[in-house]
């Protein structure tokens, strides 16, 4: 919470993107979250990613549920469309919006409580349907907004602020997303923008259901010793499998990499991802191997981050349903009311 608005003044040498905007033009209202909340860093990373991708803000829709994390869309992309839905219901509202207008870029912003507890079913179905979106879970292991109760992603054995241990098994949303068929799966950390920003850019460019689990420490209720979602714990146990460079056009690969350590992947929309491998034998295209790897390293207490799975040739819900290309709001009367003859023909086809 801050009493004054962020001054409109900006650095005189601030770079501009192709649209002539600075990154400041992608900001929203000043945050009312606790000072130091990881969620604010994720907002800043989204601002940076959209700025670097030269996205026109009015072509983006941000949707969220309830929680501190779900409040954040107010704090970025002030000139974009927004929908703050009810608790756990972001995925269905997003799915509906996407079906009505496939031309917008959809950012689904949620929390671990919003998505792994009350909204678990909604989460699962939006992923398995392949809705073209970036589904971001700002994962702090607690219900921040309601004063820090353990959420379903809190690790078994981790302790709350008063030292009480969590006895429930935890839900790993990355594993679930893999199982439900997400075509882009990644995990990152709010305290590592060098990793997070390129992942966000790649996820935005991805055609299909992209899922991003971003560990985001709650400084008010879950940043103590004994927490597995604190700055210190995540920094100590962070195991990145790769580092990503996002490139919109194909550039020659720099030669300063050892052969075999760089993999270049072209996505459906032509965007190019350059993966600098950290774990040499990790294969981002193998869903089953990825799930195994996550279980294994997770059991060893590591937090695996990076681009974990990618299906570069993914399809999305519109492809499966063979829907009309044009957004509803661009369809004219003739297309929307094709007349009784068409209705007759359609009814005939069902007899």
């Amino acid at each position, binding site marked *: *919470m*801050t009493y004054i608005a962020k001054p409109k003044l900006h650095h005189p040498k601030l770079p501009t993107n192709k649209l002539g905007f600075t990154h*400041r033009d992608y900001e929203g209202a000043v945050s009312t979250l606790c000072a*130091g909340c990881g969620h604010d860093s994720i907002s800043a990373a989204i601002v940076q990613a959209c700025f670097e991708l030269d996205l026109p803000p009015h072509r983006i829709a941000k949707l969220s549920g309830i929680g501190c994390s779900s409040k954040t869309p107010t704090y970025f992309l002030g000139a974009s469309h927004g929908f703050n839905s009810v608790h756990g219901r972001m995925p269905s509202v997003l799915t509906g919006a996407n079906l009505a207008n496939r031309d917008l870029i959809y950012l689904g912003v949620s929390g671990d409580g919003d998505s792994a507890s009350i909204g678990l079913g909604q989460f699962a179905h939006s992923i398995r349907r392949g809705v073209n979106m970036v589904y971001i879970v700002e994962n702090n292991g607690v219900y921040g907004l309601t004063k820090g109760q353990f959420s379903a992603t809190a690790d078994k054995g981790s302790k709350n602020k008063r030292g009480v241990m969590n006895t429930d098994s935890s839900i790993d949303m990355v594993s679930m997303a893999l199982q439900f068929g997400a075509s882009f799966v990644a995990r990152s950390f709010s305290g590592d923008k060098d990793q997070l920003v390129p992942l966000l850019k790649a996820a935005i460019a991805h055609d299909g259901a992209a899922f991003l689990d971003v560990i985001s420490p709650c400084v008010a209720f879950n940043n103590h010793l004994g927490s597995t979602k604190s700055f210190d714990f995540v920094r100590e146990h962070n195991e990145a499998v790769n580092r990503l460079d996002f490139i919109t056009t194909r550039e020659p690969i720099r030669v300063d990499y050892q052969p075999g350590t760089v993999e270049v992947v072209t996505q459906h929309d032509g965007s190019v991802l350059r993966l600098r491998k950290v774990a040499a034998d990790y294969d981002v295209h193998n869903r089953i191997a990825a799930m195994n790897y996550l279980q294994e390293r997770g059991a060893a207490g590591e937090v695996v981050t990076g681009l974990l799975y990618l299906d570069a040739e993914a399809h999305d819900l519109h492809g499966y349903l063979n829907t009309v290309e044009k957004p509803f709001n661009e369809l004219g009367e003739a297309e929307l009311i094709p007349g009784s003859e068409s209705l007759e023909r359609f009814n005939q086809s069902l007899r």
Partner: protein
Amino acid sequence: MDPTDIRVPDYFHKVVDCQWACPSHTPVPEYIRLIAAGRYTDAYMVNWASNVFPGILGRTCDRPCEPACRRGRVEKEPVAICRLKRVAADNKGEIKRLLPAIPARKNGKRVALLGAGPASLTVARDLMPLGYHCVLYDGDGRAGGMIRSQIPKFRLPEAVIDEEVGYITDMGVELRLGRRVDSLKAVLAEGYDAVFVGTGAPRGRDLDIPGRKEAAANIHIGIDWLSSVSFGHIDKIGRRVIVLGGGNTAMDCCRSSKRLGGEQVTVVVRSGFDEMKASPWEKEDAMHEGIPILNYLVPREFVLRDGRLAGMRFEKVAAHYDGTGRRSLVATGEPDLLLDCDDVLVAVGQENAFPWIERDIGLDFDKWGMPKVDPRTMQSTLPKVFFGGDAAFGPKNIIWAVAHGHEAAVSIDKLLSGEQVKDRPPPLVNLVSQKMGIHEWSYDNDVSLDLRYKVPHAEQAVALKNIKVEVELGFDRKLGYLEAERCLNCDVQTVFAAPLCIECDACVDICPMDCITFTGNGGENELRPRLKVPANNPSQDLYVSAALKTGRVMVKDEDVCLHCGLCAERCPTGAWDMQKFLLEMTQAGPACRSR
């Protein structure tokens, strides 16, 4: 880079750009905040302690602070620092009771102050409260130096001079005015413990070209003419006037002429308009009063008709640059320009002259005829003789004279206390947290977006009729408040405590100016370009922390920080704090002496 040592007074002092640039290091943001709070008397006294002449300087200062002001790097124009000083002076209450007490019992030491300009007056102001007996000499009948004799009354009313010079002379300074000093030897023979020479640069340069002697009746040396005007010996000039020269003296000459009967007044300079020495605002004011400035014209001859000055002939030149970028003025070959005129004012420079200082008393001069003076101590080669103001290093301005005066007073006090003049006292510094609540600060951290306000002027028709009508009316309280709010509070420093930082990035994300970067350490030249926004202004320091938990360091580019305190508000651990840095120069007195 090594972690920044913020205990070194210069580090944060440099961040307060205005105070750093001010020769007498006035705590600018401190007094600007007091003005915003309506505490005009306090604002005045903060000024008075550092620069001695707030009302005078608030109208006339050369304001080196303003080009330095951070606001000018953040938006179009700096804070109107100088004119805010005047707001304090115009609105203050009675201050006599706040002036230092003058001991009735003197300390037995006698100091002669030669020349009654701002330099000498500053020395008196610093030494009188310590019990010294000061004797002030001047050839003019009244104290003030060129503040009184040169600066025209339409820029600086007499009453303001009387008041602020009076605060000092009323301290019981012994005045020996109206009599020039013609021998330093004789002064020394009076047995003074120390002598301060503040006699200025009193000689105006002449122009020796054909016709000079023949037309002498209508050719005047600028500074001599201005002082004659000031003292009422001259009250008119011809209808057509040419003013030669491009400095502030030329600007005062032309604007004065315009008020004494000059209808067609023209300023002529040898080189380009942009290279003129006059401050931009002085040129603006002159042109605003309908005075054209012609450039690239070299005076060749005073033209006479019937034994009287009738005009001047100028050669047209252009600037040429050789391979090394050195400029020369080359005749264009066009026909000469003839300008008709009735009078000419020559304002082509000012010089020092010390015919009254004997060369055999151990006081050394350099080959340009200037005394050898230590720029830190102001001491000459004759240990008990000190110089300051325009007399020390050639013509400068009032605020430099004041700064010299303070330093000389420290030297004199140390010398007469049996101490080494060379050991200079460090400034007094104070760093205090401004935190009042979680998001409350004891300064107004909300940054005003207003553009610089213009000082209202008197109606021109009225102003041009009477040389004593002050042109600038000054900001009223409301405008003063609004302008004061533009100040960024650069003295409220961002202070970083590395052990508290959890590297959550909150400060990086909130900073409106992208000042803060967390990154691997490196050499300064290597670090600067890879900060969040490259730090391309090498005159502004980088604030570098000790290594943090991740091995990275916090690097803050001080250049365009708004001192908005948002980094400290967003920091969950209080690793950032906003702390007010108050630096006061140590002046003569017990504090300047070693304990």
